[in-house]
C-alpha cells in the first residue's frame, strides 16, 4: 500500500456559512494503481485530491504516503516532497505562458537543479514517449488544447514521479484529444509503474482506471473495481452514477 488516507475532513467558509467539503474520508491506494475519484460537482473530488497531494491541509485526519505522515510536514518539506515525488495534471493545464514548451516540460528538473545532461536526456525521452518532439520550441499560446494537456502531462512525468495527480484532465479536451491523453496515462501507469489518482466526473475517462471511488457530499459513497473489461466497467460506472444522482445527476438518462 502506497497511500493511506485516514479520517480526513475539511471545512470551508466562516461559522454561519460553513461548508463541509470532506467528512471523515478514509481510503487506501496501492502502489502502481490507477484510481479514479468520481462524484458530482461540489462533491469534494478536487478537495480530496488537493489534500492527498499536499496542496491543502486537512482540518482533521492523516495522509500517509510510503509510511510518512505528510500532514505533519512543514510547508517547505511538503513543497519539496511534492516536487520530488509527485506530478500534476490540471483541467486548466497550469502551464506557464511566459515559458516555451521545452522550458515548461523541464521546469521540475530545473527546479531540482538537475544537471544539464540529465535534463536533456529526460526531455528527449518524454518528447518521444508522448510523441510531441515537434512542439519543443513552440510557445504555449500556439498550441491546441489537446497539445497543451499532453505538454502538461510531459511536465508532470519528466522527473519520474511516484504518484501522478490528475484533476479533470480531460475536462477541457474534445473526445479525440481526451482519448489520446488517457491512453498515454494508461501507458505510463503500466510502463513506469506510476500510481495515478484522477478526479473526474466523466464516466468514459473513469473507465481507464483500475478502480473508481465515488464520493458524494464529502463522504465515500461506493467504489467499483475494473473487472478487466473496459466496456463492462464503463457500464458499471454509469449505473453507479444513476444510483448516486437518481438517474440524471451526471446528464445520463435513465434509459441509457
Amino acid at each position, binding site marked *: 500500500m502506497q497511500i493511506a488516507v485516514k479520517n480526513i475532513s475539511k471545512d470551508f467558509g466562516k461559522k454561519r456559512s460553513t461548508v463541509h467539503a470532506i467528512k471523515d474520508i478514509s481510503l487506501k491506494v496501492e502502489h502502481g494503481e490507477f484510481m479514479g475519484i468520481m462524484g458530482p460537482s461540489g462533491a469534494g473530488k478536487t478537495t480530496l485530491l488537493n489534500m492527498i497531494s499536499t496542496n491543502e491541509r486537512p482540518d482533521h485526519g492523516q495522509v500517509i504516503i510510503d509510511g510518512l505522515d505528510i500532514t505533519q510536514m512543514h510547508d517547505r518539506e511538503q*513543497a*519539496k516532497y511534492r516536487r520530488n515525488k*509527485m506530478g500534476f495534471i490540471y483541467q486548466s493545464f*497550469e502551464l506557464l*505562458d511566459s515559458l516555451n514548451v521545452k522550458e515548461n516540460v*523541464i*521546469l521540475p528538473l530545473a527546479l531540482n537543479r538537475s544537471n544539464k545532461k540529465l535534463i536533456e536526456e529526460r526531455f528527449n525521452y518524454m518528447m518521444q514517449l508522448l510523441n510531441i518532439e515537434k512542439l519543443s520550441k513552440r510557445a504555449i499560446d500556439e498550441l491546441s488544447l489537446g497539445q497543451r494537456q499532453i505538454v502538461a502531462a510531459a*511536465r508532470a512525468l519528466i522527473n519520474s514521479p511516484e504518484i501522478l495527480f490528475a484533476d479533470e484532465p480531460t475536462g477541457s479536451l474534445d473526445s479525440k484529444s481526451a482519448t489520446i491523453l488517457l491512453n498515454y496515462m494508461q501507458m505510463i501507469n503500466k510502463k513506469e509503474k506510476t500510481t495515478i489518482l484522477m478526479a473526474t466526473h466523466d464516466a468514459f475517462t473513469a473507465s481507464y482506471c483500475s478502480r473508481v471511488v465515488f464520493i458524494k457530499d464529502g463522504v465515500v459513497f461506493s467504489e467499483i473495481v475494473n473487472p478487466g473489461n473496459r466496456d463492462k466497467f464503463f457500464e458499471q460506472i454509469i449505473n453507479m452514477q444513476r444510483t448516486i444522482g437518481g438517474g440524471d445527476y451526471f446528464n445520463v438518462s435513465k434509459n441509457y
Partner: protein
Amino acid sequence: MYQKIIKRSLSNMRDSYLIYILACSFAIGVFGILLSMGDNPSLHYALRWWDTLIDDITAMMSGLFALCAFVYMIYVGGFFIKQQRNEFLTFEKLGMQRWVIVAIGFIQTVIVQAIAWIIGLIFMFVFQKFMGMLLFYLMQVRLNFEMYIGLQNIGQLFTLFIGSTLILSVINAVKTMRILQKKKRKNSVKTRWRLKIPAGVFGIVLLLTAQVCTLCLFKDMHTVSYSSRPMMEIGYIMGADILGTYLVYYGFLPSVLNIMEKIHSVAYSGINIFSFKYMKERLFQNISILWFVTELSALALALLTFCYFGYQAVHQNYNSAYPFELAANEDTVKVIREELKKNDAKVKGTYKTAVKINLVSYYSKSSQSYIRQPMTFMSYSAYKSLPKRMRKGNSNINSHQFLKIDYKSSVMYGNQEKEHDIEVKNAPMIQSAKVGYSFPYGSSMHFGPMMIVPNKYYQSMPAEVKDTFYGWDFKKGDRLSHSQLQKLNSYRDAYYMKVDFKSSLSRSSIKVMKKEPNKYAASTYTQAGFLRQGSLKKHFKQGGGFYLFIVALYSVALLIALGSVLTLRILLRDDYQSNQLRTLQKIGVEETEVKKIIIRENTLTFLIPIVFALIQSFAAIAMFDFGRHISKNIILIYGGYIVLYALFGLISYKVSWRGVKQKFNL
C-alpha cells in the same frame, strides 16, 4: 447589484487603493496647508519683512504642488481601471450595457477621490499647526503659530475637490470606454532584438560619455562666467543622461536578461528558468515608468543638491560678509565702545588687528585682466590670532606663504587657483599667493582684496594708509537700540581714499579724505566705519528657514509620489502573472523560492531607477559643488533620500508578498 460590484472592486484592490489614497491624501493635506498659510495672520506677523511676498510665494507653491499632484492622480488613477480590464470585458460579455460599465468606472473614481479628500482635509486640520510650528522652528521665530483656515480657503478647497474629482472621474470613465472598445490585448510582447541591442549599446555609450563629460565639468565649471564650455557640457550631460537611460532600459537591460536566459547552466538552475522570463516581461511592461521615476528621482536629487549648495553658498557668503556681530575701525571704535557701555552689552570676545593699505598691480586670472588697486595687508601672526571661523573659506598657509583674499565672482563657484606675480608699491613682488574668500572682519570692511603676508614682509613693507580693525562677539546680541543705531549711522563711512594712478606703482599714491567727496571718481574707495549683523541675521535665518521648509516638503512629496508609483506598478500585476506564481506553487515550488522572485522583482524595480538617478545626479554635484569634492553633508542628504526610498521598497515588498500569499491561499 452595481453597488456590490463597486464594493467588491474596491475591496479586491484594497492594498493598492490604500497606498494611492494615502499618497493623494498627503498631497491634498500639504496643498491645503500651503494654501491656508498664505492667509495665516501669525505667519504674516512673523514674516513682516516678507509680508508682500508670502501670498505670492504660498500661492505659487501651492499651485505648483496642486498641478504636480493632479498629474500624479491622472497617471496613477488610470492603473486601477487598467487592472479591472478583464472584469469590465466580462460584464460586457454578460450583457451589461456599456454606459453602465463606464458609470461603474466613474463612480469608483468619485468614491476613491472623495475618501482621499476627506483624509487629506483631516490631515490638513490636524497637521497645520504642527507644520506651522516646524516652519517657525526652522525660521528661528519664537512665536506661537495660530491655526487658521479662512472661509476663502475652504471655498477654494471645495471647488478644487469638485473640479478635480469630476475631471479625474471623467478621464477614468473615458479609459473604461477605451478598454471596452479595444477588446484585444497582446499578452506577449514581440521583442525586436535587432533594434534593442544597438539601442542598448548606444545608450551605454551615451551614459559613459555623459560621465566623462561630468568629470570634465568638475574641472570646467568655475569658468562659467566667461566660457560657454560648461553650459555646453551641462546640455550634453542632460541630453545624454535622459536619452541614454531610456535606451539602456529599452535595449540593454532586456538584452542582459536575454543573454542570461540563453546561458543554460544559469537559466536552467532552480527558479531562474522562470524568473528571468518573468523579470523580462515585467521590465518590458514598466520601461516607461522606470524611466519616468529615474528622471524624477534624479531631478529630486538635483534639487536637493542645488538647495544644499545654494544654502551653503549664501550662508558662507553671509558669514564671510559678517564674521563679527560688530566690527569697527580706529576712527569709530571710541564711539562704538561708548554706546556699548551705555546699553550694558555682554561682550564675549574682542579682537583688534593692525592693517596696512598699499597699492598693488597684478594680472587677475578670474577676470582675465590687469588690475591696479589698493589692497589691505595683514600679518600672518595677526591673521592666525583671529577666530578660526574667519579662515573657513581660505586656503591653509604657513608663516612663509602669502594668501590673497578676494570677493568671489559668483556665490556658487570659488576660484581656487593661485595668483602669481603681484606687484606691491615699494615692496618685493609677491611671486605666488594662495587664494581664499573669507575676509577677516567681513568683506564690507574692505574696499578691495586683502593679502595675508609673512610677519617679516609685513614689518618691512611701507604703508600708504595705516588702520586698525576691531571686532566684537556678544552674548545675546549687541543690544544697540534704534536711536543708538541712528546715531551710529553718521559713522558708517570712516574715510575715503582717492588713488592717483600713474604709469608705475612707485609713482602712484593714495590721498585720504575725511569728508565724502562731491564727485565719486572710479579711483575713489570708501573705508567702512563699522559693520553690524543686526536685523540682517534675522532676515537671513527666516528666509533660510522658509526655503528649507519648502524644499523639504517638496522632496518628501516627490519621494512619496515616486515610491507609490513603483509600489503600485508592482502590486497591480496582471491576472495571468499572478496565476503563474500560483501555478509554480501548485507544481511544488517552495514558498521561499516564490518569495525570492518577489524580492528580485522589488529589488530590481526600486534599485534600477535609484542607481541611474544617482549616476545622473553626479552631474548636479559637478554643477553646484564649488568645493570640487563630494562633501560629507551631500552624502548624508543622498543617504537620507536613499533610506526613505528603500523604505518604500521594503513596504512594497511586504505588501506585494502579502498579496501573492493571499492568492496562494485561495
